C-alpha cells in the first residue's frame, strides 16, 4: 500500500548519472514506502539497472538527493548500502554452489558467539525461520546449493537479503529464465517481503510478473521518468505506451512537468 502521509523509506530526487557521452539517468525521482512494491520498467538502456546500482551503492550519482526515512544519505559502497538497510539481488545471484543453503545465506556475515566462534546452530535456526517467513519450498537448509533448482536458488538469493534486517530490497530481473512454477515461488516471496513491511524495488522486463505483484509502476525512458502508474488499476496497454514513448503522460513525474 502507498501511504502518502508517511515519510518514504527511500526518496530520490533529481538523480543524474553520465558515462562519458551517455546520459544514463537524467533528473530521476523515485519514492518507495513501507509495505510497497515499486516496479521499475522500461526498454533496454532506459536506466533501470543504473538506478538500482545507485541505490545498491555500486554506482554514485553525479547529482541528486537521496534520503532514507527522511534523512539525507550518501551510498558510496555496497557496504554502506547494507549498513543503511538496503539489500540487493542482482541477476548473477552471487551464491556459492559448493556451500549449503545456510552457509550461502550468511556468506561474509557469519554469526559468531561470545567467544568469536562461528555459531552454526543459530545460523541454521535463522535460516529455517527466514525460509519459512518467505514460504519457501526448500525442504532442508543443509543441502548444497548445486542440488537446488533455479527457482530454489533464487529463493535462497532473496532469503539472503533478509539477513541483517533490511528495510529496502532491490531485485534485478528475479524471474528471468525461470519456469512458471519457479516464477510463482519468486512472486510469492516478493509478496511475503511486502507483507513483512519492507519496501521492494523490482526491476523486470516481464510485464505480467510486474503487474502481478507491484503496487506502483515507475516507467523510465532514456534515463528520465516517463510516468507513474497504479499497478492495480492500470491496463497493460497504457504502461506499454509510456515505455515506448507513444504516450507522454502529464504528471508530477513526466518530462513535461520537469521542464515547467
Amino acid at each position, binding site marked *: 500500500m502507498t501511504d*502518502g502521509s508517511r515519510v518514504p523509506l527511500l526518496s530520490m530526487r533529481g538523480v543524474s548519472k553520465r558515462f562519458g557521452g551517455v546520459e544514463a539517468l537524467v533528473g530521476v525521482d523515485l519514492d518507495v514506502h513501507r509495505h510497497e512494491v515499486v516496479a521499475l520498467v522500461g526498454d533496454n538502456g532506459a536506466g533501470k539497472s543504473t538506478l538500482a546500482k545507485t541505490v545498491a551503492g555500486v554506482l554514485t550519482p553525479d547529482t541528486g538527493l537521496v534520503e532514507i526515512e527522511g534523512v539525507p544519505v550518501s551510498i558510496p559502497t555496497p557496504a554502506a548500502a547494507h549498513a543503511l538497510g538496503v539489500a540487493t539481488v542482482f541477476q548473477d545471484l552471487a551464491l556459492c554452489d559448493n556451500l549449503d543453503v545456510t552457509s550461502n545465506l550468511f556468506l561474509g556475515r557469519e554469526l559468531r558467539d561470545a567467544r568469536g566462534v562461528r555459531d552454526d546452530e543459530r545460523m541454521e535456526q535463522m535460516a529455517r525461520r527466514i525460509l519459512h517467513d518467505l514460504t519457501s519450498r526448500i525442504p532442508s537448509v543443509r543441502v548444497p546449493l548445486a542440488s537446488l533448482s533455479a527457482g530454489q536458488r533464487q529463493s535462497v538469493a532473496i532469503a539472503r537479503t533478509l539477513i541483517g534486517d533490511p528495510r529496502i530490497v532491490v531485485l534485478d530481473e528475479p524471474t528471468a529464465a525461470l519456469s512458471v512454477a519457479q516464477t510463482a515461488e519468486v512472486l510469492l516471496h516478493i509478496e511475503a517481503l511486502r507483507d513483512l513491511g519492507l519496501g521492494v524495488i523490482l526491476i523486470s522486463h516481464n510485464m505480467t510478473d510486474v503487474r502481478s505483484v507491484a503496487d506502483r509502476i515507475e516507467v523510465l525512458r532514456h534515463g528520465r521518468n516517463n510516468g507513474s502508474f497504479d499497478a492495480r488499476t492500470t491496463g497493460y496497454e497504457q504502461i506499454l505506451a509510456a515505455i515506448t514513448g507513444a504516450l507522454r503522460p502529464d504528471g508530477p513525474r513526466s518530462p513535461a512537468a520537469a521542464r515547467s
Partner: protein
Amino acid sequence: MSRRGAAAGSQTALREANKGLVVGTVQRYGGLTQVELAAATGLSQATVSTIVRELLAAGVVETAVTTRSGRRAQLVTLARRVGLAVGVQVGHRHLRVALGDFAHEVVAEQALPLPYEHPSDTTLDRAALLVMEMLERIGSDLEEVVGIGVGVPAPVDTDTGMVSVPGVMRGWEGEHLGQVLTKRLGRPVHVDNDANLGALAEATLGAARGYRDAVYVRASYGTGAGIVISGQVHRGFAGTAGEIGHVQVDPTGHICRCGSRGCLDTVVGATALVEPLRATHGSLALRDVIARTRQGDPGFVRVVADAGAAIGAVVAGLGTAVNPQCVVVGGELSETGEVLLGPLRESVRRGVLPNQIAPLEVVPAQLGQRAEVMGALVLALRAADVPVRAPEDVLLDGDGAGAGVRDGEG
C-alpha cells in the same frame, strides 16, 4: 430398473449393483471405513465386508488401517493407480492449481499471483505449463490424469465451458475455456463457476458435508454463491444461479460491470472496499484490507463489518428461496473471521423466516481458501470413469442422508 448383462432380479445383478454402490460411495467421499460405508450405502456390514474383499482382490480399492473414535478401522480408498485429477482455480488476482488422487488427497499445490484483468489466453497457457511442471514434480505425467476441473469467477454454461454473462470477466468471454485447455493438455476439462465449486467441495468434504441443502458464499474481489439442493449443486438454466454479486442493493448506486446499477459487488467488491480508505491510507490491495482488519485497525474493521451486513442481507434472500440447513462462508474476505461473519450472520438471521426444525447455521468454510480448487478437483473426479459404475437409477435414501449416489457431478 436397468441391469448390466444379468437377468433381472438375479443375485448376480444385485451383487453388481451393490458393488457399484460401494465404489461410487468411496469415490464420492474419497475414503471411508467399512463401518461408514455400511452406514452410507445402507448395506449390511457383512455385505460391505465381502464386497470390499472382492474389490481389493480386483485391485479397484485399497485398504489401510486407521482409527475412528479411538478404535482401529479399515479405511477403504480407490486404488491410486486409478489416477490423478487436477483442480485449477482462476481468481481475479491469482491462480491456484492442485493435483489430487482419488482419496481427495492433495499431492501437489501451487499458487501464482496474477495481474489485474489477466486475459484467458495467457493465463490458461501458464496454467497448462504449471500443471505439467507439477506433474513432473511428483514424478507423474499427463497419462495419469483422469480429468481437470477449472473454476472461474464468473457464471459458466457448463455445457460449452463458456462464461455465460458478458462484461463480468473481461478477456474471458467468447472462449470455450475447457476446449482451450483440452487442446494443450489432451485430457477432459470441466469448467464451472468458482462459487459453485466451493459449494461442491464444502458439501462433499467440508462444513456442509451431510447436509442436503446448503449455500456457499464466496466473498472475494466479487461476491458469488453456490447453491446445493438435495445434495446436488444447482446451477440453473444458464449457470447464473447464485450470482448474488449482481443483486441490486442500492437503486441509486454505481454502475456495475454487468451493466446494472447498485449491484452488491459495487458495494462490497474489492474496489468498493478500498475506496473509502483511500483518503487516509492511499492505494490499497485487498490483502491489505484483510491484514489490517485482522490487526484490529478500526477503520478497516468497520469497512469489513459493513460488508458482512450487506452480504448477509442478500444471502437472507437466498435463504428464503432455498431454505438451506447451513450457509458456509469462504473467499479471501472470510479470512477476517468473525469481523465479517458476525454481521453477516446477524443480517441472515434478521432476514430469513425461522423454522421449528433447526436454526440456520452460518459457518466459515472448513476448507478455507482451498475450497474452490478442491471443488475443481472433486468436479474432475466425479466426471471420471471408474471401473465399476453405480447404476444411474439408484435412488437417494428417503431422508437423503449419506451417499445418495448418482453418476456424474453433484
